[in-house]
C-alpha cells in the first residue's frame, strides 16, 4: 500500500494514517509517553450480556463459532502458547471459511512456524488484515511480497496488551486453546496432554474480548482444580475438538545449554559485563531468553549467584526449565511466568507456589499502573541485526523478508536498567552490525551494550558502564571499530532492494510508529 509518510524522531519514514486503522502517531522517543503526563481514554464497545446459560459447551467448533456471533470483517484473536504445535488457528479459520466468513482481522499474540496455513487463508480472502508480534515462514514471505493489501501491524507483547486495553485493538472473538477446561469454561495451561504452562497472553484476551470461546481437547469434570488460569465468568462458549495441538512441538524437552564455542564466548563476555556493572546483587531481577547465548549467560549468572550467596528478587518472561531450577535452588524469590518455554516449566508452575503465572499486561504493558519489566535490573536479549546507533532488528532477515518476532524485546529493553544484546558478529558470512538496521524494533536509546564474540560495544550514553567494563578487563570497542573489524572478514554486503509500498508497520510499545516494513523487490 502506498501511504503518505512522515519522518519520526529516529529518522524513519512512517505512515501518518492507514485506512481502517486511522491516524497514527510517529515515534518520538522511548519514554515520550512515560513522563506521567500522558492521558488516554479507553475506547469501549458494546457487549451483549448473555442469558445465564445451562450449557456453554457447543456441539462442535462450527457451532461455537456461530454462537459467538462471528461475522465477516470482525477481529479474532488466538494465543501462541502452543508454539509450533498449535492447530487451533487452522481449525478455527477453516471452520469459519466453511461458514462463509471472510475478511477477518487476525490478531494472535504471535504466529510461529505452524502458521504457514495462514498464508492460504490470506490468499483465499478469509483473512485480510493481520496484527501480530511475530511472523515467520510462508506468512512472512507472503507479506514481504505484498500479497496482503493492508499493512500488517507488528506489536510488542506489552504494546499489544496496551492496544487491547485501550481499545485500539478491538477483539470481537477470542478463540483460546485450553489444555484443560471444564464445562463452564474454567481453563488452565498447566494440565493435560497438551499442557503448555502459563496462559499469560490468553488471560489478557479473555478479559477484554467481546466474546471468548475456549477450544479444548481435554474437558475435565467441573470444577477444574487445583489451578484456574482463566475463570469461567470471562468465558462464553466451550468447543471440544479432537486435538488442539501436537504435544511434541508444544513442550520440547528441557532446553539445553549450547556447546557452540561462539555462543559460549558471547555468553562469557555478556556475563562479564553484567558482573562488572554491579547489578548482580541481593534483590536483583533478571530476564533472559531461551536462545543460545542468553541461556548460556544465565548459567554463568547462576554459578556466580551460588558462589557468592546472592539471592535475587525475581525472574520474568519466557521461562525455561533452567530458570525454574534456579528458583528451586533459592536463587530468586519468585518467577513471574508469562510464557513457558519447555516441558520442565509446566511441572514447576504446578508444584511451586513461587512460580507464578503472570498475564501479559502485568508483564509488559507500559501504560498500566506498573508492569514487571519496568523494575528489571538486567535483561539479556538476542538480535537478528544491530546498527551503529544500537538499534535492534528482530523482524527482518538479511534478505529483508519478515521472519522474526517483536516479542518482549523493546518492552524489556526500555524497562531494564541494563539491556544487553547478545549476537554473533556474523551469520553465514553476513555481518550483524550495520550502518542502519532494516527495521527498528527496539530503539538504540534503550540498548546499553551489544556483545559479540569479537568484543563488546557500549552505548555512548552509558560511559559509566564502559568504565566499569574496562576496569574489569573486558574487550570494549567502539561500535564502529567493531563493525570494521567484522567487515574485514565478511566484507560489506549489498543493500537489499525495496519498493515504496508499505507492507507492515512496527508499533512501539507506547502506540507510536517506530518503523515501516517495505515490499521486497
Amino acid at each position, binding site marked *: 500500500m502506498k501511504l503518505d509518510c512522515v519522518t519520526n524522531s529516529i529518522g524513519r519514514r512512517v505512515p501518518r494514517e492507514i485506512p481502517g486503522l486511522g491516524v497514527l502517531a510517529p515515534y518520538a522517543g522511548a519514554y515520550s509517553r512515560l513522563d506521567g503526563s500522558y492521558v488516554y481514554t479507553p475506547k469501549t464497545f458494546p457487549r451483549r450480556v448473555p442469558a445465564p446459560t445451562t450449557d456453554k459447551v457447543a456441539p462442535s467448533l462450527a457451532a461455537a463459532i456461530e454462537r459467538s456471533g462471528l461475522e465477516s470483517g470482525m477481529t479474532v484473536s488466538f494465543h501462541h502458547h502452543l508454539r509450533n504445535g498449535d492447530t487451533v488457528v487452522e481449525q478455527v479459520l477453516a471452520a469459519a471459511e466453511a461458514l462463509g466468513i471472510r475478511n477477518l482481522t487476525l490478531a494472535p499474540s504471535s504466529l510461529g512456524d505452524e502458521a504457514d496455513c495462514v498464508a492460504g487463508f490470506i490468499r483465499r480472502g478469509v483473512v485480510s488484515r493481520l496484527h501480530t508480534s511475530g511472523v515467520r515462514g510462508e506468512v512472512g514471505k507472503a507479506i514481504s511480497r505484498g500479497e496482503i493489501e493492508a499493512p500488517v501491524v507488528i506489536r510488542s507483547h506489552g504494546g499489544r496488551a496496551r492496544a487491547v486495553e485501550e481499545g485500539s485493538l478491538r477483539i470481537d472473538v477470542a478463540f483460546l486453546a485450553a489444555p484443560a477446561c471444564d464445562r463452564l469454561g474454567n481453563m488452565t495451561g498447566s494440565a493435560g496432554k497438551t499442557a503448555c504452562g502459563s496462559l499469560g497472553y490468553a488471560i489478557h484476551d479473555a478479559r477484554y474480548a467481546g466474546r471468548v470461546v475456549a477450544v479444548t481437547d481435554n474437558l475435565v469434570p467441573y470444577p477444574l482444580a487445583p489451578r484456574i488460569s482463566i475463570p469461567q465468568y470471562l468465558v462464553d462458549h466451550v468447543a471440544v475438538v479432537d486435538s488442539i495441538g501436537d504435544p511434541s512441538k508444544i513442550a520440547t524437552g528441557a532446553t539445553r545449554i549450547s*556447546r557452540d564455542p*561462539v555462543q*559460549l564466548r558471547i555468553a562469557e563476555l555478556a556475563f562479564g559485563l553484567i558482573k562488572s556493572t554491579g547489578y548482580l546483587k541481593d534483590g536483583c531481577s533478571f530476564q533472559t531468553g531461551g536462545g543460545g547465548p542468553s541461556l548460556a549467560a544465565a548459567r554463568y549468572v547462576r554459578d556466580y549467584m551460588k558462589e557468592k550467596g546472592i539471592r535475587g528478587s525475581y525472574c520474568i518472561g519466557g521461562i525455561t526449565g533452567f530458570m525454574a531450577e534456579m528458583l528451586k535452588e533459592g536463587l530468586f524469590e519468585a518467577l513471574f511466568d508469562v510464557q513457558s518455554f519447555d516441558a520442565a516449566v509446566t511441572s514447576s508452575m504446578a508444584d511451586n507456589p513461587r512460580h507464578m503465572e503472570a498475564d501479559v499486561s502485568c508483564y509488559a504493558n507500559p501504560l498500566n499502573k506498573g508492569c514487571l519489566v519496568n523494575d528489571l535490573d538486567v535483561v539479556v536479549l538476542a538480535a537478528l541485526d544491530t546498527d551503529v546507533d544500537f538499534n535492534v532488528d528482530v523482524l527482518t532477515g538479511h534478505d529483508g523478508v519478515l521472519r522474526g518476532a517483536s516479542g518482549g524485546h523493546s518492552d524489556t529493553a526500555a524497562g531494564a536498567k541494563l539491556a544487553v544484546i547478545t549476537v554473533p558478529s556474523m551469520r553465514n558470512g553476513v555481518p550483524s552490525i550495520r550502518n542502519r538496521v532494516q527495521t527498528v524494533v527496539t530503539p538504540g536509546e534503550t540498548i546499553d551494550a551489544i556483545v559479540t*564474540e569479537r568484543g563488546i560495544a557500549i552505548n555512548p550514553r552509558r560511559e559509566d558502564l564502559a568504565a566499569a567494563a574496562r576496569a574489569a578487563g573486558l574487550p570494549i570497542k567502539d561500535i564502529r571499530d567493531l563493525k570494521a*573489524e567484522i567487515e*574485514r*572478514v565478511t566484507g560489506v554486503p549489498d543493500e537489499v532492494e525495496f519498493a515504496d509500498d508499505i507492507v507492515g508497520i512496527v508499533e512501539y510499545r507506547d502506540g507510536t510508529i517506530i518503523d515501516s516494513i517495505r515490499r521486497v523487490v
Partner: protein
Amino acid sequence: MKPDRTAGRPRRSLLYIPGNNPGMIQNCSIYGADGVLLDLEDSIALAEKDAARKLVRGALRALDFGGVERVVRINGRDTPYFEKDLAEIVPARPDAVRLPKVDGPEDVLEADRIISRLEKENGIEPGTVRIQAMLETARAIVNAAAIASSSPRLSGLTLGGQDLAADLGIKATKDGRELLYAKSAVVIAAKASGLEAFDTVYTDVNDLEGLLEATRTAVSLGFSGKAAIHPSQVPVIHVAFAPTESEVRKARAVVRAAREAEARGAGVVALDGRMIDAPVVAQAERTLELARLAGMEDAQA
C-alpha cells in the same frame, strides 16, 4: 639462527582446528586457547588435502589471530603432501609447523632444510618458522634426545598418544597411564635441549573431569602445555595449569627477594635465612606468569 622470539609466551593450550573448516578457522581468536593447531593431517580426508592447505594458507595471510599462536600441523615426511604443505604454508609465516611421525633427527633436518630454503626464497628472516616435533613411535621415543638436539629450529616436542599406543600394540586408556614412560621421556628430552613439551590430546570431549585430572598429571610431569580437540577443553586445561594461592604467595616472596638482592647488588638471593638458587627464582617467575594468565588477582610480585 635467530633466537625464538616467541619464547616465554604461554602455551598451556593448543587447540586443533580442522584445516578445511572455514567457520572454525575464522574464529581462532575467540576460543581462548593460547595457540591453535591448524590441522592438515589426520582430521583431513585425502580428497580434502589440497583444499585444506589452500584454506589454511589464505587464513594465515588474511585473518587477525590476535595474540593466538599459529601452528600448522602438516603431513608427515612419509606422505606425498609433506613438501607441498611446507611449500605453501611456510611463505604464509605461521609461528611454527608441527611435524608428525618424527622417528629420528633426519626427519627434523629434512624439514629444516626445506623451511630454510623457503624462508630465503620468500624474504623471510631465517628461523622465523619454528618446528614442533611429534613423537609417535617406539623408535621415536628411543631417539627422543637425538631428535630434541637435532636442530635449533625446534621449539618443542610432543607425543601422539593414539599412534604411539598402536605402535606399542597396547590399548590407549583415558588417563594415559600406559604412556607414562613415553611422556616422561619426551619431557626430559625436551627440557635437556631447552625445548617445550606438549602433552597429547584427551579424546573424550564429554568428560571434562577426566580431562582436568589428566592435565594435572601432565603439569606434574613437567609438560608446558596440552593439545585440545574441542574449545570446551580449553578452559579446563587452563584451570589445571593455574597455580594454587599458596604457590603464588611463595613465588611472590621468592621473586621479591631476588629483586631486592639484585637492587642491593648482592650475588646471593636469600629468603627467610635460606639461599635460593637461580632455577628456583626462574620457577617462581613462571608460577607468577601462570597465575597472571589464569586471571588470579594480585599475581604481581
